[in-house]
């Protein structure tokens, strides 16, 4: 009942918000915030409950749609609800000047509702239904801004439809062979299935979920979509919507197929998990270094979205208790960081009139300090600086990779982190540091409703970075439900038997050291505060507006690695589309427009029919 309430509230709420928008914009904004907040509260109340309900049935296929709640779905549901709420809050000021705001709020809430439906559904049919609703809702929202966004939306929906059709194929074949689509019963039924069939299923689902989670070779929609969507929705996209693929992976791999069966797939190094791990590793390295070459802030973040997804896939691919936990935890952590960073970009866009080109910005720390703090927290989280959240999850992934004796995968993960450091520092530097251009002299800090989400997320980054025990408690519950032996964790890190990590000590020492250094600093001779014009310029006065180094920030590195980072996959897809278009053109020539040929077709058909008869001897 509770789950049905959640879904009803979120779906109906979307409609109500749209209708109220017809009367007054103010009421609409407030009601949108309230609805999303209500969803957060409802999901939060459902913590630590096990619920299962049938909510609908299709007698003609004797199927029944059902919902369920367990640790896994709750974990994802709370992320969805939380990020959804924050992005709605962020939108209030951001979206004001667009047209079709009512539609925007409706679709935002609708997509959130669809995602909740995905994570709450207990059988593949309802899963698929919500999945598709989310997909086309996303398509409409990506295209919302018009202009370049249209092409991005089309690219997204085509790839998404292809993926979900592959998924549908697998789902229906499951139903045809087992007569049920309930996760629970499938989990038991599949245990006796042949490895070949399991492999086929997994491949189909990997295509379906891989498109969403943007694993390498299925990732090409993501940069365009993230870059062209409106920023609050980009946050939702990168934080939770893309991670629905992650949820799908966890669901099919561990909740349904199960660990014992996964180990049977393949021999030695050539098994499913290992290959998945390598896909994850490639997904880390190539996109992360591609991000290095971006000059559009949102594209840069989008490529990182792909790369971080690689960490998650890598983590769950290793299929150890630590690895799975790391993968899931990284999902949460990246949701926080990614959403935060897109909010930051959104704030910058909002204040500078939609400037996303990293080479035009600079020095905004002096005007938008709060946004800068948020951005700093965000990139620290993305890098995984100690005492921020991603550090823990990445630590778990590295640890398990090394312990499982996969040094090369571990290397891919490490070097991905270095690519991340380079590009996100460029991101931060080119936006906030350096010289403040003349044209942004009187930029103001963003209004409060845009600051609150950023502040909350920054706090979350620090919180989960110092107290990873909070999410890890839920995650070990998830692992219990997978049948993996659950990860035993302490509040501040890892117990001795898993590894040496105690964040509270690190924090304490860092604080002490910082205080000591600060004392030295403040006791020594004072310093004079100067503005950016009083600056070393080889004895000359600083040329205003021209004294900034941001374009081609890592030029020499580009020259070396640039040639290898050409996105061949994307080219291949475009080639495919072009070729098929021309072949369709050829096919069209069948209809010549000449009646004689048509009559000829008819006679040919008749004779063909008769020949078929004689030939086949029907």
């Amino acid at each position, binding site marked *: 009942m509770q789950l049905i309430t959640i879904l009803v509230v979120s779906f109906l709420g979307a409609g109500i918000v749209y209708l109220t928008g017809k009367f007054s914009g103010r009421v609409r904004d407030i009601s949108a915030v309230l609805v999303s907040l209500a969803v957060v509260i409802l999901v939060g109340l459902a913590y630590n409950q096990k619920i299962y309900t049938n909510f609908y049935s299709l007698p003609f296929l004797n199927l029944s749609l059902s919902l369920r709640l367990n640790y896994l779905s709750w974990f994802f549901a709370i992320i969805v609800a939380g990020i959804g709420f924050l992005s709605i809050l962020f939108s209030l000021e951001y979206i004001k000047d667009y047209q079709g705001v009512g539609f925007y709020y409706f679709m935002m809430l609708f997509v959130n509702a669809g995602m909740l439906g995905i994570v709450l559904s207990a059988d593949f049919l309802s899963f698929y239904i919500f999945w598709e609703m989310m997909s086309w809702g996303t398509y409409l929202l990506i295209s919302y801004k018009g202009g370049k966004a249209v092409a991005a939306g089309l690219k997204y929906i085509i790839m998404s439809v292809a993926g979900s059709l592959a998924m549908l194929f697998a789902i229906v074949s499951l139903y045809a062979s087992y007569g049920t689509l309930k996760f629970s019963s499938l989990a038991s039924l599949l245990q006796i299935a042949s490895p070949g069939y399991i492999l086929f299923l997994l491949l189909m689902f990997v295509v379906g979920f891989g498109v969403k989670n943007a694993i390498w070779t299925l990732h090409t929609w993501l940069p365009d979509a993230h870059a062209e969507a409106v920023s609050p929705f980009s946050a939702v996209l990168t934080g939770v919507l893309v991670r629905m693929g992650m949820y799908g992976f966890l669901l099919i791999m561990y909740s349904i197929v199960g660990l014992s069966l996964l180990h049977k797939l393949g021999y030695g190094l050539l098994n499913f998990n290992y290959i998945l791990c390598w896909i994850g590793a490639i997904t880390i390295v190539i996109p992360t270094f591609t991000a290095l070459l971006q000059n559009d802030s949102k594209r840069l973040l989008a490529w990182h979205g792909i790369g971080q997804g690689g960490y998650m896939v890598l983590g769950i691919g290793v299929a150890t208790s630590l690895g799975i936990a790391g993968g899931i935890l990284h999902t949460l952590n990246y949701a926080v960081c990614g959403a935060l960073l897109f909010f930051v970009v959104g704030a910058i866009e909002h204040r500078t009139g939609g400037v996303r080109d990293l080479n035009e910005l600079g*020095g905004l*720390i002096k005007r938008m300090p709060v946004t800068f703090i948020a951005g*700093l927290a965000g990139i620290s989280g993305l890098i*995984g*600086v100690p005492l921020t959240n991603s*550090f823990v999850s990445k*630590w778990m992934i*590295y*640890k398990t990779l*090394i312990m499982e*004796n996969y*040094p090369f995968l*571990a*290397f891919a993960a*490490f*070097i991905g982190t270095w*690519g991340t*450091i*380079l590009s996100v*520092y*460029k991101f931060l*530097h080119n936006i906030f*540091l*350096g*010289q*403040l251009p003349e044209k942004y002299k009187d930029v103001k800090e963003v209004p409060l409703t845009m600051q609150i989400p950023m502040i909350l997320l920054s706090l979350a980054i620090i919180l989960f970075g110092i107290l990873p025990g909070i999410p890890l408690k839920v995650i070990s519950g998830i692992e219990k439900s997978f049948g993996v032996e659950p990860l035993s964790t302490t509040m501040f890190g890892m117990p001795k038997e898993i*590894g*040496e*990590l*105690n*964040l509270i*000590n*690190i924090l304490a*020492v*860092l604080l002490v*050291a*910082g205080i*000591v*250094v*600060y004392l*030295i*600093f403040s006791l*020594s*001779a*004072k*310093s004079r*505060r*100067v503005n*950016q014009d009083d*600056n*070393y310029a080889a004895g000359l006065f600083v040329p205003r507006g021209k*004294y*900034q*180094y*941001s374009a081609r*920030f*890592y030029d*020499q*590195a580009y*020259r070396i690695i640039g040639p290898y980072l050409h996105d061949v996959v994307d080219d291949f897809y475009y080639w495919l589309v072009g070729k098929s278009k021309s072949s369709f053109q050829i096919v069209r020539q069948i209809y010549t427009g000449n009646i004689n040929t048509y009559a000829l077709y008819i006679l040919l058909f008749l004779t063909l029919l008769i020949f078929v008869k004689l030939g086949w001897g029907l």
Partner: protein
Amino acid sequence: MIIKVISIIVLPLIALIIGFFFLGLSRKVIARIHRRYGPPISQPLIDVIKLINQESISHGKLFDMGVILSLAGSVILVLFIPFGGIAPLATSGDLLVIIYLMLLAPLGVALSGGEAANPNVSIGISRKMMLALGYEVPFLFSLLAVMTWYKTTSLVEVVKAQQSFLWAIFYLPLPAVAYFMILPAMLGIRPFDIVSAPQEIASGTAVEYGGRYLALTTIQHAFHIFIDIALFVNLFLGGGNLLTFFVKMLVVFLLGLFINAVFPRLRIDQAIKYCWKWPAILALVGLIIARII
């Protein structure tokens, strides 16, 4: 417990002294290699004392905080690296944590330098980043080789295992050589002092630094020298007690010094290519061997 607290207080001081000693020694040794008399060993200390008493300019809060963060990061890093068996915090962070804590210092400098709105600083930072990208590849390869070989991520374990039998350098010569080859790059000394090239970009990140800022960065540099070399000694030369540990560090440092004192400065792209060529290949081969055996 008490011992732990004492060591937490003492260890950074030891590191500081050793670091300053190495700084002074390097100036002296290089001077002698140049057929000069050279400054006294204590010259870096004199410089720091002067700098602390000299006024300076500040470009904002981040400008200060970044420097503080970088020094603090180096200080706590010292506590994670066993120095002659003393490693007060080794149980709360292993090699992976060390790798990540090594981020704090450059990150701090990068942030504080970034707020000094000076393109020289930005160029210096971008060079630092690219150089780091260059030497991280062999560095990570060799670290992974050690971790794979000893099946542990804890530095203390690694040291124990070596002291029980042979040093790692005998099992894993190639990664050790690779680490040694990139050591100057990690320390940012010639031929890899691209980051703070005074003649090209007016000492890079330190352009706007004067007075206490410069003092703190000098201290940080001293710590940095200590950390990198101590890490090498722990990883490949089997740690040792206080004395032998110091001796090993001295040997490693002097060897590196003799090599880099005679080289001219590389260009940044040359540096990256160098790091990705020989050291990386050696370390990779070493890693593959360590993985297979």
